[in-house]
Protein backbone atom coordinates (compact mmCIF):
# COMPACT_ATOMS: atom_id res chain seq x y z
CA UNK A 1 0.00 0.00 0.00
CA UNK A 2 2.52 2.52 1.22
CA UNK A 3 4.89 1.54 -1.58
CA UNK A 4 2.34 2.15 -4.31
CA UNK A 5 1.37 5.42 -2.66
CA UNK A 6 4.96 6.59 -2.62
CA UNK A 7 5.54 5.53 -6.19
CA UNK A 8 2.46 7.30 -7.49
CA UNK A 9 3.41 10.64 -6.00
CA UNK A 10 7.10 10.38 -6.57
CA UNK A 11 7.37 10.04 -10.30
CA UNK A 12 9.83 12.59 -11.64
CA UNK A 13 7.17 13.63 -14.10
CA UNK A 14 4.62 14.64 -11.49
CA UNK A 15 7.35 16.33 -9.46
CA UNK A 16 8.24 18.55 -12.38
CA UNK A 17 4.59 19.30 -13.11
CA UNK A 18 3.53 20.01 -9.53
CA UNK A 19 6.52 22.15 -8.64
CA UNK A 20 6.13 24.15 -11.83
CA UNK A 21 2.76 25.30 -10.51
CA UNK A 22 4.05 27.04 -7.41
CA UNK A 23 7.70 27.60 -8.27
CA UNK A 24 7.35 31.30 -9.03
CA UNK A 25 5.35 32.02 -5.85
CA UNK A 26 7.98 30.34 -3.72
CA UNK A 27 10.80 32.15 -5.44
CA UNK A 28 9.27 35.63 -5.33
CA UNK A 29 8.04 35.27 -1.77
CA UNK A 30 11.46 33.95 -0.72
CA UNK A 31 13.36 36.78 -2.39
CA UNK A 32 10.91 39.33 -1.01
CA UNK A 33 11.27 38.04 2.55
CA UNK A 34 15.02 37.81 2.22
CA UNK A 35 15.22 41.40 0.98
CA UNK A 36 12.91 42.58 3.78
CA UNK A 37 14.87 40.74 6.42
CA UNK A 38 18.20 42.01 5.20
CA UNK A 39 17.17 45.62 4.68
CA UNK A 40 15.50 45.66 8.08
CA UNK A 41 18.48 43.94 9.68
CA UNK A 42 21.18 45.98 8.00
CA UNK A 43 19.59 49.41 8.02
CA UNK A 44 16.98 49.60 10.75
CA UNK A 45 17.82 47.14 13.50
CA UNK A 46 19.68 48.74 16.42
CA UNK A 47 23.42 48.48 16.87
CA UNK A 48 24.68 45.76 19.20
CA UNK A 49 25.92 47.12 22.54
CA UNK A 50 29.10 45.04 22.48
CA UNK A 51 29.79 44.11 18.90
CA UNK A 52 28.66 47.30 17.20
CA UNK A 53 27.66 46.93 13.59
CA UNK A 54 29.67 43.82 12.86
CA UNK A 55 26.99 41.59 14.37
CA UNK A 56 24.75 42.38 11.40
CA UNK A 57 26.32 39.51 9.51
CA UNK A 58 24.12 37.17 11.56
CA UNK A 59 21.33 37.90 9.11
CA UNK A 60 23.36 35.93 6.61
CA UNK A 61 25.34 33.69 8.93
CA UNK A 62 22.57 32.26 11.10
CA UNK A 63 20.18 31.28 8.28
CA UNK A 64 23.07 29.77 6.35
CA UNK A 65 24.19 27.69 9.33
CA UNK A 66 20.66 26.44 9.95
CA UNK A 67 20.09 25.36 6.38
CA UNK A 68 23.56 23.83 6.10
CA UNK A 69 22.28 21.13 8.43
CA UNK A 70 18.63 21.03 7.42
CA UNK A 71 19.54 20.30 3.81
CA UNK A 72 21.62 17.36 4.95
CA UNK A 73 18.74 15.95 6.96
CA UNK A 74 16.46 16.38 3.98
CA UNK A 75 18.98 14.45 1.89
CA UNK A 76 19.11 11.70 4.50
CA UNK A 77 15.32 11.26 4.37
CA UNK A 78 15.53 11.07 0.59
CA UNK A 79 18.39 8.57 0.82
CA UNK A 80 16.30 6.27 3.00
CA UNK A 81 13.41 6.53 0.56
CA UNK A 82 15.76 5.63 -2.24
CA UNK A 83 17.31 2.67 -0.47
CA UNK A 84 14.10 1.25 0.98
CA UNK A 85 11.51 1.93 -1.72
CA UNK A 86 13.84 2.48 -4.68
CA UNK A 87 12.30 5.90 -5.33
CA UNK A 88 14.22 7.38 -8.23
CA UNK A 89 13.04 10.90 -7.55
CA UNK A 90 14.61 10.74 -4.08
CA UNK A 91 18.03 10.12 -5.60
CA UNK A 92 17.53 12.97 -8.05
CA UNK A 93 16.67 15.25 -5.15
CA UNK A 94 19.78 14.25 -3.19
CA UNK A 95 21.97 14.78 -6.20
CA UNK A 96 20.45 18.24 -6.78
CA UNK A 97 20.45 19.32 -3.14
CA UNK A 98 24.07 18.41 -2.47
CA UNK A 99 25.59 21.38 -4.34
CA UNK A 100 23.07 23.72 -2.71
CA UNK A 101 24.03 22.28 0.67
CA UNK A 102 27.73 22.64 -0.06
CA UNK A 103 27.22 26.23 -1.18
CA UNK A 104 25.23 27.23 1.89
CA UNK A 105 27.69 25.47 4.20
CA UNK A 106 30.49 27.36 2.54
CA UNK A 107 28.58 30.62 3.04
CA UNK A 108 28.10 29.75 6.70
CA UNK A 109 31.83 29.10 7.14
CA UNK A 110 32.88 32.12 5.14
CA UNK A 111 30.49 34.56 6.82
CA UNK A 112 31.59 33.13 10.16
CA UNK A 113 35.19 33.86 9.27
CA UNK A 114 34.37 37.42 8.31
CA UNK A 115 32.50 37.84 11.55
CA UNK A 116 35.39 36.33 13.46
CA UNK A 117 37.89 39.00 12.46
CA UNK A 118 36.28 41.94 14.31
CA UNK A 119 34.78 39.82 17.11
CA UNK A 120 37.49 37.35 18.01
CA UNK A 121 40.41 38.97 16.24
CA UNK A 122 41.00 35.89 14.11
CA UNK A 123 39.28 34.46 11.09
CA UNK A 124 39.59 30.87 12.19
CA UNK A 125 39.22 29.18 15.55
CA UNK A 126 39.18 25.46 16.28
CA UNK A 127 35.83 25.89 17.91
CA UNK A 128 33.42 23.00 18.16
CA UNK A 129 30.75 24.50 15.92
CA UNK A 130 33.13 25.71 13.26
CA UNK A 131 34.87 22.36 13.15
CA UNK A 132 31.66 20.39 12.81
CA UNK A 133 30.50 22.74 10.06
CA UNK A 134 33.80 22.24 8.28
CA UNK A 135 33.35 18.47 8.49
CA UNK A 136 29.82 18.87 7.16
CA UNK A 137 31.26 20.78 4.23
CA UNK A 138 33.70 17.92 3.54
CA UNK A 139 30.77 15.50 3.67
CA UNK A 140 28.90 17.49 1.02
CA UNK A 141 32.00 17.51 -1.17
CA UNK A 142 32.36 13.75 -0.71
CA UNK A 143 28.77 13.15 -1.78
CA UNK A 144 29.12 15.33 -4.86
CA UNK A 145 32.42 13.73 -5.86
CA UNK A 146 31.12 10.22 -5.28
CA UNK A 147 28.15 10.67 -7.55
CA UNK A 148 30.05 12.34 -10.32
CA UNK A 149 32.75 9.69 -10.42
CA UNK A 150 30.50 6.94 -11.76
CA UNK A 151 29.29 6.69 -15.31
CA UNK A 152 26.42 4.38 -14.40
CA UNK A 153 24.07 6.84 -12.77
CA UNK A 154 21.86 4.27 -11.07
CA UNK A 155 24.85 2.70 -9.34
CA UNK A 156 25.96 6.17 -8.34
CA UNK A 157 22.49 6.89 -6.89
CA UNK A 158 22.60 3.85 -4.66
CA UNK A 159 26.17 4.39 -3.46
CA UNK A 160 25.47 8.04 -2.78
CA UNK A 161 22.40 7.13 -0.72
CA UNK A 162 24.43 4.69 1.36
CA UNK A 163 26.99 7.39 2.03
CA UNK A 164 24.34 9.97 2.96
CA UNK A 165 22.71 7.61 5.45
CA UNK A 166 26.03 6.71 7.05
CA UNK A 167 26.83 10.41 7.18
CA UNK A 168 23.61 11.36 8.98
CA UNK A 169 24.43 8.90 11.74
CA UNK A 170 27.82 10.51 11.91
CA UNK A 171 26.57 14.09 12.35
CA UNK A 172 25.53 13.82 16.04
CA UNK A 173 28.71 11.84 16.72
CA UNK A 174 30.81 14.60 15.23
CA UNK A 175 28.96 17.23 17.25
CA UNK A 176 29.32 15.29 20.46
CA UNK A 177 32.98 14.52 19.92
CA UNK A 178 34.07 18.00 18.94
CA UNK A 179 32.16 19.48 21.87
CA UNK A 180 33.95 17.09 24.11
CA UNK A 181 37.28 17.89 22.56
CA UNK A 182 37.08 21.65 22.40
CA UNK A 183 35.65 22.17 25.88
CA UNK A 184 38.80 20.53 27.08
CA UNK A 185 41.10 23.17 25.68
CA UNK A 186 39.16 26.32 25.40
CA UNK A 187 37.38 28.78 27.57
CA UNK A 188 33.74 29.16 26.58
CA UNK A 189 34.14 32.88 25.93
CA UNK A 190 34.65 32.49 22.22
CA UNK A 191 31.97 29.98 21.41
CA UNK A 192 29.10 31.54 19.63
CA UNK A 193 26.68 28.94 20.87
CA UNK A 194 25.83 30.85 23.99
CA UNK A 195 24.86 34.13 22.43
CA UNK A 196 23.27 36.49 24.89
CA UNK A 197 19.50 36.60 24.57
CA UNK A 198 18.65 38.51 21.49
CA UNK A 199 16.54 41.65 21.40
CA UNK A 200 13.19 41.47 19.62
CA UNK A 201 14.19 44.28 17.27
CA UNK A 202 16.95 42.00 16.03
CA UNK A 203 14.98 38.78 16.30
CA UNK A 204 12.19 39.74 13.89
CA UNK A 205 14.46 40.57 10.94
CA UNK A 206 16.45 37.46 11.73
CA UNK A 207 13.37 35.23 11.60
CA UNK A 208 12.29 36.91 8.37
CA UNK A 209 15.75 36.33 6.83
CA UNK A 210 15.63 32.70 7.89
CA UNK A 211 12.25 32.04 6.28
CA UNK A 212 13.25 34.08 3.23
CA UNK A 213 16.41 32.09 2.78
CA UNK A 214 14.52 28.86 3.29
CA UNK A 215 12.06 29.64 0.52
CA UNK A 216 14.80 30.89 -1.79
CA UNK A 217 16.76 27.70 -1.27
CA UNK A 218 13.66 25.59 -1.95
CA UNK A 219 13.16 27.52 -5.18
CA UNK A 220 16.80 27.03 -6.11
CA UNK A 221 16.53 23.33 -5.28
CA UNK A 222 13.43 22.96 -7.44
CA UNK A 223 15.18 24.68 -10.32
CA UNK A 224 18.30 22.52 -10.12
CA UNK A 225 16.41 19.28 -9.67
CA UNK A 226 14.16 20.07 -12.60
CA UNK A 227 17.18 20.60 -14.83
CA UNK A 228 18.75 17.45 -13.47
CA UNK A 229 15.62 15.35 -13.96
CA UNK A 230 15.37 16.51 -17.53
CA UNK A 231 19.00 15.56 -18.25
CA UNK A 232 18.66 12.19 -16.53
CA UNK A 233 15.39 11.23 -18.16
CA UNK A 234 16.05 12.81 -21.53
CA UNK A 235 15.18 9.64 -23.40
CA UNK A 236 11.74 9.41 -21.80
CA UNK A 237 8.76 10.48 -23.84
CA UNK A 238 7.33 12.89 -21.30
CA UNK A 239 10.56 14.86 -21.18
CA UNK A 240 10.69 15.13 -24.95
CA UNK A 241 7.12 16.37 -24.94
CA UNK A 242 7.82 18.72 -22.04
CA UNK A 243 10.85 20.32 -23.61
Amino acid sequence: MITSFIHRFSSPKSFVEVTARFFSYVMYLGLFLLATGWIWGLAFAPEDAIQGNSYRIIFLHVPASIFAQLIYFFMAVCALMHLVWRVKLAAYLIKSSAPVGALITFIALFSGSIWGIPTWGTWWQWDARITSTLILFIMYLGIITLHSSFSNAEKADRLMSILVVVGVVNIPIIKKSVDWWSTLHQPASITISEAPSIDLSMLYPLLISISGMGLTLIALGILISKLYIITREKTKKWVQNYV
Partner: protein
Amino acid sequence: MINLLTHEAFKLRHRLRAWLGPLLIMVLVLIAFPLSIDVSQYDLNKFYFSIIVVSLLVISFLATESIFSEDYEDGSLEQIYLEEKDFYKVVLTKISIYIFFIGIPMSLIGSLFSFANGVAADETPKIFVILTFSTLILFNIFSFGSALSINKGAMLGVLVSLPLALPVIVLLGRAIRTVQYGEGFIEVLSLLAGVGLILAAVMPIIISATLKTHLE
Protein backbone atom coordinates in the same frame (compact mmCIF):
# COMPACT_ATOMS: atom_id res chain seq x y z
CA MET B 1 34.78 -19.65 7.22
CA ILE B 2 38.17 -21.10 8.20
CA ASN B 3 38.83 -21.68 4.54
CA LEU B 4 38.08 -18.03 3.88
CA LEU B 5 40.39 -16.94 6.69
CA THR B 6 43.33 -18.99 5.47
CA HIS B 7 42.78 -17.83 1.90
CA GLU B 8 42.68 -14.17 2.81
CA ALA B 9 45.70 -14.52 5.08
CA PHE B 10 47.55 -16.35 2.31
CA LYS B 11 46.80 -13.61 -0.19
CA LEU B 12 47.80 -10.80 2.14
CA ARG B 13 51.01 -12.53 3.17
CA HIS B 14 52.06 -12.69 -0.45
CA ARG B 15 51.41 -9.02 -1.01
CA LEU B 16 54.35 -7.58 0.87
CA ARG B 17 53.64 -4.11 -0.37
CA ALA B 18 50.17 -4.23 1.09
CA TRP B 19 51.04 -5.28 4.62
CA LEU B 20 54.71 -4.58 5.24
CA GLY B 21 54.60 -1.28 3.35
CA PRO B 22 52.25 0.54 5.74
CA LEU B 23 54.18 -0.71 8.78
CA LEU B 24 57.48 0.54 7.38
CA ILE B 25 55.98 3.92 6.57
CA MET B 26 54.70 4.14 10.12
CA VAL B 27 58.16 3.45 11.52
CA LEU B 28 59.67 6.02 9.15
CA VAL B 29 57.18 8.70 10.19
CA LEU B 30 57.75 8.04 13.87
CA ILE B 31 61.51 8.31 13.41
CA ALA B 32 61.30 11.34 11.15
CA PHE B 33 59.14 13.40 13.47
CA PRO B 34 61.64 13.95 16.30
CA LEU B 35 64.30 14.74 13.71
CA SER B 36 62.19 17.52 12.28
CA ILE B 37 61.77 19.48 15.50
CA ASP B 38 64.17 20.97 18.01
CA VAL B 39 64.12 18.21 20.61
CA SER B 40 65.83 20.32 23.25
CA GLN B 41 63.01 22.84 23.23
CA TYR B 42 60.00 20.58 23.43
CA ASP B 43 58.92 18.06 25.98
CA LEU B 44 58.77 15.15 23.59
CA ASN B 45 56.79 12.74 25.77
CA LYS B 46 53.83 15.13 25.79
CA PHE B 47 54.13 15.93 22.16
CA TYR B 48 54.87 12.59 20.66
CA PHE B 49 51.39 11.17 20.94
CA SER B 50 49.98 13.58 18.47
CA ILE B 51 52.22 12.20 15.75
CA ILE B 52 51.38 8.62 16.74
CA VAL B 53 47.67 9.44 16.47
CA VAL B 54 48.03 11.18 13.13
CA SER B 55 50.25 8.47 11.67
CA LEU B 56 47.75 5.86 12.87
CA LEU B 57 45.07 7.75 10.95
CA VAL B 58 47.10 8.08 7.77
CA ILE B 59 48.57 4.58 7.80
CA SER B 60 45.17 2.98 8.48
CA PHE B 61 43.94 4.74 5.39
CA LEU B 62 46.93 3.58 3.34
CA ALA B 63 46.65 0.02 4.60
CA THR B 64 43.00 -0.43 3.70
CA GLU B 65 43.18 1.38 0.39
CA SER B 66 43.40 -1.78 -1.69
CA ILE B 67 41.52 -4.10 0.68
CA PHE B 68 38.71 -4.75 -1.82
CA SER B 69 39.96 -3.12 -5.00
CA GLU B 70 42.60 -5.78 -5.50
CA ASP B 71 39.97 -8.52 -5.71
CA TYR B 72 37.60 -6.26 -7.60
CA GLU B 73 40.01 -5.41 -10.37
CA ASP B 74 41.16 -8.93 -11.20
CA GLY B 75 37.61 -10.31 -11.14
CA SER B 76 38.02 -12.42 -8.00
CA LEU B 77 35.34 -10.48 -6.18
CA GLU B 78 32.59 -11.58 -8.56
CA GLN B 79 33.83 -15.17 -8.31
CA ILE B 80 33.68 -14.92 -4.53
CA TYR B 81 30.18 -13.49 -4.81
CA LEU B 82 29.02 -16.35 -7.04
CA GLU B 83 30.34 -18.89 -4.55
CA GLU B 84 29.45 -17.17 -1.35
CA LYS B 85 26.44 -14.89 -2.04
CA ASP B 86 26.87 -13.68 1.53
CA PHE B 87 29.43 -10.92 1.41
CA TYR B 88 29.12 -10.21 5.13
CA LYS B 89 31.37 -13.14 5.97
CA VAL B 90 33.87 -12.22 3.30
CA VAL B 91 34.09 -8.59 4.41
CA LEU B 92 34.34 -9.56 8.06
CA THR B 93 37.14 -11.99 7.26
CA LYS B 94 39.07 -9.52 5.17
CA ILE B 95 38.91 -6.78 7.78
CA SER B 96 39.89 -9.19 10.55
CA ILE B 97 42.88 -10.41 8.60
CA TYR B 98 43.96 -6.85 7.88
CA ILE B 99 43.64 -5.89 11.52
CA PHE B 100 45.59 -8.96 12.55
CA PHE B 101 48.40 -8.49 10.04
CA ILE B 102 48.61 -4.70 9.90
CA GLY B 103 46.49 -3.11 12.62
CA ILE B 104 47.87 -4.93 15.62
CA PRO B 105 51.53 -4.67 14.54
CA MET B 106 50.87 -0.99 13.91
CA SER B 107 49.56 -0.54 17.45
CA LEU B 108 52.58 -2.40 18.72
CA ILE B 109 54.92 -0.08 16.84
CA GLY B 110 53.01 2.92 18.15
CA SER B 111 53.19 1.79 21.76
CA LEU B 112 56.86 0.84 21.48
CA PHE B 113 57.70 4.25 20.12
CA SER B 114 55.72 5.94 22.86
CA PHE B 115 57.66 3.86 25.38
CA ALA B 116 60.91 4.93 23.75
CA ASN B 117 59.80 8.51 24.06
CA GLY B 118 59.19 8.62 27.76
CA VAL B 119 55.98 6.77 28.58
CA ALA B 120 56.38 4.65 31.72
CA ALA B 121 56.75 0.92 31.14
CA ASP B 122 53.59 0.01 33.03
CA GLU B 123 51.55 2.43 30.91
CA THR B 124 52.77 1.19 27.57
CA PRO B 125 50.29 -1.75 27.53
CA LYS B 126 47.48 0.76 28.08
CA ILE B 127 48.62 2.68 25.01
CA PHE B 128 48.76 -0.56 23.07
CA VAL B 129 45.17 -1.47 23.98
CA ILE B 130 43.92 2.01 23.09
CA LEU B 131 45.71 1.97 19.75
CA THR B 132 44.41 -1.51 18.96
CA PHE B 133 40.79 -0.55 19.48
CA SER B 134 41.36 2.61 17.47
CA THR B 135 42.71 0.61 14.55
CA LEU B 136 39.66 -1.64 14.82
CA ILE B 137 37.45 1.43 14.35
CA LEU B 138 39.63 3.11 11.74
CA PHE B 139 40.06 -0.02 9.63
CA ASN B 140 36.30 -0.50 9.50
CA ILE B 141 35.69 3.12 8.55
CA PHE B 142 38.39 3.26 5.93
CA SER B 143 37.34 -0.10 4.50
CA PHE B 144 33.94 1.49 3.93
CA GLY B 145 35.59 4.46 2.22
CA SER B 146 37.71 2.12 0.16
CA ALA B 147 34.66 0.02 -0.81
CA LEU B 148 32.75 3.12 -1.91
CA SER B 149 35.61 4.41 -4.03
CA ILE B 150 36.70 0.95 -5.10
CA ASN B 151 38.01 1.81 -8.55
CA LYS B 152 38.24 5.56 -8.20
CA GLY B 153 41.36 6.01 -6.15
CA ALA B 154 42.45 7.69 -3.00
CA MET B 155 41.02 11.18 -3.36
CA LEU B 156 37.42 10.03 -3.25
CA GLY B 157 38.28 7.59 -0.47
CA VAL B 158 39.68 10.38 1.69
CA LEU B 159 36.74 12.66 1.05
CA VAL B 160 34.11 10.11 1.98
CA SER B 161 35.82 8.53 4.98
CA LEU B 162 37.58 11.46 6.62
CA PRO B 163 34.40 12.90 8.17
CA LEU B 164 33.79 9.50 9.75
CA ALA B 165 37.32 9.15 11.01
CA LEU B 166 37.75 12.55 12.64
CA PRO B 167 35.55 11.80 15.68
CA VAL B 168 37.67 8.71 16.25
CA ILE B 169 40.76 10.87 16.38
CA VAL B 170 39.12 13.08 19.02
CA LEU B 171 38.23 10.01 21.04
CA LEU B 172 41.71 8.55 20.64
CA GLY B 173 43.33 11.81 21.73
CA ARG B 174 41.07 11.87 24.76
CA ALA B 175 41.96 8.28 25.60
CA ILE B 176 45.67 8.99 25.45
CA ARG B 177 45.26 11.99 27.72
CA THR B 178 43.62 9.78 30.32
CA VAL B 179 46.77 7.68 30.31
CA GLN B 180 48.90 10.79 30.67
CA TYR B 181 46.85 12.23 33.53
CA GLY B 182 46.17 8.85 35.07
CA GLU B 183 42.42 8.98 35.48
CA GLY B 184 39.29 7.95 33.60
CA PHE B 185 41.15 5.34 31.58
CA ILE B 186 38.62 2.54 32.00
CA GLU B 187 35.67 4.75 30.99
CA VAL B 188 37.30 5.93 27.78
CA LEU B 189 38.60 2.47 27.00
CA SER B 190 35.14 0.93 27.34
CA LEU B 191 33.75 3.65 25.09
CA LEU B 192 36.44 2.92 22.49
CA ALA B 193 35.88 -0.82 22.76
CA GLY B 194 32.09 -0.42 22.53
CA VAL B 195 32.26 1.78 19.46
CA GLY B 196 34.84 -0.57 17.94
CA LEU B 197 32.78 -3.70 18.42
CA ILE B 198 29.55 -2.11 17.20
CA LEU B 199 31.32 -0.80 14.10
CA ALA B 200 33.02 -4.15 13.51
CA ALA B 201 29.59 -5.78 13.44
CA VAL B 202 27.64 -3.13 11.51
CA MET B 203 30.18 -1.83 9.00
CA PRO B 204 30.52 -5.16 7.13
CA ILE B 205 26.75 -5.04 6.43
CA ILE B 206 27.08 -1.60 4.86
CA ILE B 207 30.28 -2.55 3.07
CA SER B 208 28.72 -5.68 1.55
CA ALA B 209 25.78 -3.64 0.27
CA THR B 210 28.30 -1.23 -1.26
CA LEU B 211 30.32 -4.00 -2.88
CA LYS B 212 27.19 -5.63 -4.30
CA THR B 213 26.20 -2.33 -5.87
CA HIS B 214 29.65 -2.06 -7.41
CA LEU B 215 29.45 -5.51 -8.93
CA GLU B 216 26.22 -4.75 -10.78
